[in-house]
């Protein structure tokens, strides 16, 4: 058995993790492949078919403009996953850099961490609303705002881990070998941060999907003409008492995706934790 096979086998030894991975793969696969296969327009309005219940032609029914909910969920998946993924990647990159610098260089610690404290003193969604209203509502600005919201969390976690790593003997040992400081950070500190950072990545991925939905719901997120799961829920607010499917199915899509991401993150954390590795 090759090493990577053993790793996968151990990762999927927990059924929940396996199920989450399968579900996520499915969501990502459909979101990427479907628009290539079908040129059905998720924005096609058909007033005669408005607010129809789920049926054979419209699996998840139609919304108040007669748009197919299923089609919009599939297209919305692209945007929601894109926002979640890019936000998580951006926050992790920035946060890791900040946290590593703050944790390793004592002189940078106070200024960087006070900045982080200041940002964390705002409630997430409030800071998001403020940033989007400053920057203006667009897909990219929502992502930028969410990156700014979630960077401090990563920075905190990374700083804490770096503080521990910095005192470990292998950092001194590397210095005793004549390794330069930036190489110590890159080769000796960063690889040891992979496990906490990866966990943060999956969690922030999930949070960002939720936060985008929240911002869009409040009307300060993605412009309503772009189908994301958030804008779908926001748009269906008035008709949801007459047509539950317009709000239920996008909601379920968010719940299952976010839950799967969290579960997968948990599985990855267990896998990478050397203490748990020894125990098993």
């Amino acid at each position, binding site marked *: 058995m090759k090493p990577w096979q053993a790793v996968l086998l151990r990762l999927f030894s927990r059924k929940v993790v396996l199920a989450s991975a399968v579900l996520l793969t499915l969501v990502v696969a459909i979101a990427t492949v479907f628009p290539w296969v079908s040129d059905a327009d998720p924005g096609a309005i058909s007033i005669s078919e408005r607010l129809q219940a789920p049926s054979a032609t419209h699996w998840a029914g139609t919304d108040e403009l007669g748009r197919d909910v299923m089609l919009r969920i599939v297209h919305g998946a692209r945007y929601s996953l894109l926002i979640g993924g890019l936000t998580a990647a951006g926050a992790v990159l920035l946060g890791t850099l900040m946290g590593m610098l703050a944790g390793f260089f004592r002189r940078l610690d106070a200024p960087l961490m006070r900045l982080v404290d200041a940002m964390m003193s705002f409630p997430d969604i409030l800071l998001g609303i403020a940033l989007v209203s400053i920057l203006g509502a667009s897909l990219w600005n929502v992502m930028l705002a969410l990156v700014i919201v979630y960077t401090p969390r990563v920075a905190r976690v990374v700083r804490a881990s770096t503080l521990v790593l910095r005192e470990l003997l292998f950092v001194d040992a590397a210095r005793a*070998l004549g390794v330069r400081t930036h190489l110590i950070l890159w080769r000796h500190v960063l690889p040891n941060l992979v496990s906490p950072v990866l966990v943060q990545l999956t969690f922030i991925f999930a949070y960002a999907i939720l936060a985008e939905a929240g911002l869009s719901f409040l009307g300060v997120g993605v412009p309503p003409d772009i189908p994301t799961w958030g804008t779908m829920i926001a748009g269906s607010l008035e008709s949801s008492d007459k047509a539950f499917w317009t709000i239920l199915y996008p909601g379920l899509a968010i719940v299952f995706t976010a839950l799967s991401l969290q579960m997968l993150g948990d599985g990855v954390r267990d896998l990478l934790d050397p203490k748990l590795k020894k125990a098993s």
Partner: protein
Amino acid sequence: MSTDTFPRLEVRGLATSFATDGGRIQSVADVSFAIRAGETLALVGESGSGKSVTSLSLMGLHAKTSQAQVGGEAWFVRRDGVRVNLLALPEAQRRALRGNEIAMIFQEPMTSLNPVLTVGEQIAESVRLHQGLDRTAAKAHAQRMLELVEIPAARQRVDEYPHQLSGGMRQRVMIALAMACQPTLLIADEPTTALDVTIQAQILALMGRLQKETGMSLLFVTHNLGVVAQYADSVAVMYAGRIVESAPVHGLFAAPSHPYTRGLLACLPGVARQRSRQQGESGTQGGRRPLLAAIPGQVASPLAPPPGCAFAPRCALRTDDCDAAMPPLSGEGARRVRCLHAEEAVAA
């Protein structure tokens, strides 16, 4: 004058102080010693006597946060024959020496290795850094180094992670790491303290073999006098940050002249047994378990050092002169002692 006549490392008046909340603390002062090519100097002393600080000062590895101030000189003869003062060298040149010509082994093999890199990668890092080998050549070198330190199945071990190795194995890897660039000076900071006694013997034998093969000099920091007696050529005993006695190993064990050295030797179980046997022969107490000797009192706090000799408060031979001033390290040649009553101590 040829550089061969100079010792490989000559330390003169090394002094290190740290900033603490209670003011600046003089951790190590007036430390002088010399190590010739291929020789082993053991730096002996109890915890907190400044052994590790001395070795870290030589390597320039004090944490920036401790605001260490290092004074004195440490003349090191480089491979190219140039004699340089380590303590006055620019950081870039010093870094080029670290791991290359001067290597260090730490006490804790469990945490000295990076847990997420394979042992091969860690050994390879050093040779890639200093000798510019490419990835494949460096890995081959890493495997050769593992074979050199007698790790069985080196071909597999080279791709393993530290957690897959035992403590003794890891210390072998650390030695391989330190020896990768064939240093001419190896600083070993209590390399066997964290290991089982049987493994200790193996590691020491290995280091002895490597030293014989490469002709490197060894600064051996330890508190284990048994190890010193067996492996060192000369000994420097430290107490409260100063060398109190330095001597060739046979001279020191045969006739220790500083009261502290005598106290240390009396603490050894073997010495205690000998003494009790002598007393037993004189007919007082036969068959009793030998009592270990102890040095009364505690090491003086570096925040409030005694006015004179640091050992005076615990010393049986103390007189008023001892409190007047720190006695100088006096004596001839290799044999030096920092005590006003050294002759009496020998006689006693």
